[in-house]
């Protein structure tokens, strides 16, 4: 991708190039219309969706696909709400059977209170799905060893959390995220926990490849405006990372010359 100052800064996952480093979810919006407006304003070209039963009692419900065109956005089905490898594998297969792609955002949740990942189940599901030809993007903890095992199992990106899903607590452990980024060959996409623009900017300043968020947009008073803020923040954080920040010092250094002061 060519940015607004003419630099090339491609974001490639599994050979596919994305124009935005911001990936957004589509849950918890007030309406399909608001979802689409926020997604468009975010600039994201990859969008996550969930697989659920059709509600047969509801009167003629409109499919999300009728609003989010697979021609406009790359839809990434998730396995949210799955608490075992087997369940996540089942949901991944259902998502793929929709016929859009073989990509899956893999979640195996270990605890209802924190929604923290069950990394053992996650590894097991990753191995099975990779063997079945899936392109797997696992949502994981910020633990390096798990991330390395996921990469070794064939994950095309690793998606550590900033803080628990839907918490809006921001980036709790920037050190762990930097360690992951330094050690992994596949893209690192921070997924979950970002609450506002400064969180997104700070996260990108750690050098990660992208951010996936949902609630920060959907639960804002004005989701569309927050989508714009996040687009700008992700871009600003990426630019700052590429620019290379100045060193931190615990003493002052004057910005104006010492020479030329009046006697």
């Amino acid at each position: 991708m060519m940015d607004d100052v003419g630099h090339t800064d491609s974001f490639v996952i599994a050979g596919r190039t994305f124009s935005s480093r911001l990936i957004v979810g589509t849950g918890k919006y007030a309406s399909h219309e608001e979802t689409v407006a926020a997604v468009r304003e975010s600039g994201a070209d990859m969008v996550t969706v969930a697989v659920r039963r059709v509600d047969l009692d509801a009167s003629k419900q409109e499919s999300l696909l009728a609003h989010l065109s697979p021609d406009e956005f790359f839809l990434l089905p998730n396995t949210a709400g799955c608490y075992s490898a087997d369940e996540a594998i089942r949901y991944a297969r259902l998502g793929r059977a929709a016929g859009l792609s073989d990509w899956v955002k893999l979640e195996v949740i270990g605890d209802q209170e924190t929604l923290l990942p069950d990394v053992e189940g996650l590894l097991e599901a990753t191995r099975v799905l990779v063997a079945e030809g899936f392109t797997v993007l696992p949502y994981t903890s910020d633990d390096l060893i798990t991330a390395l095992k996921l990469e070794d199992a064939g994950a095309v990106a690793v998606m550590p959390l900033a803080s628990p899903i839907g918490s809006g607590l921001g980036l709790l452990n920037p050190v762990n995220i930097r360690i992951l980024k330094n050690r992994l060959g596949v893209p690192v996409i921070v997924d979950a926990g970002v609450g506002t623009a400064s969180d997104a900017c700070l996260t990108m300043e750690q050098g990660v490849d992208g951010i996936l968020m949902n609630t920060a947009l959907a639960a804002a008073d004005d989701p569309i405006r927050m989508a714009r803020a996040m687009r700008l923040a992700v871009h600003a954080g990426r630019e700052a990372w590429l620019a290379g920040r100045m060193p931190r010092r615990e003493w002052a250094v004057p910005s104006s010359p010492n020479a030329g002061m009046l006697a």
Partner: protein
Amino acid sequence: MHIDVNGKAREVETGLSVAGLLSELDLDGRLVVVELNRQIVRHTERSEMLLRAGDRIEIVHFVGGG
């Protein structure tokens, strides 16, 4: 005959196909995925695949999610 669709009992005619069930439910077949007794039914198989008493069918689609 009795079948189970998305966790609810349903009475349908013997010999109904998966495609027939979707049209009975007024669903756009292009936007849903069907699982019959834990096996995914491919779009191309829906017309020939006939339902039997006791079958458990799941009909899913994409909804908003993170």
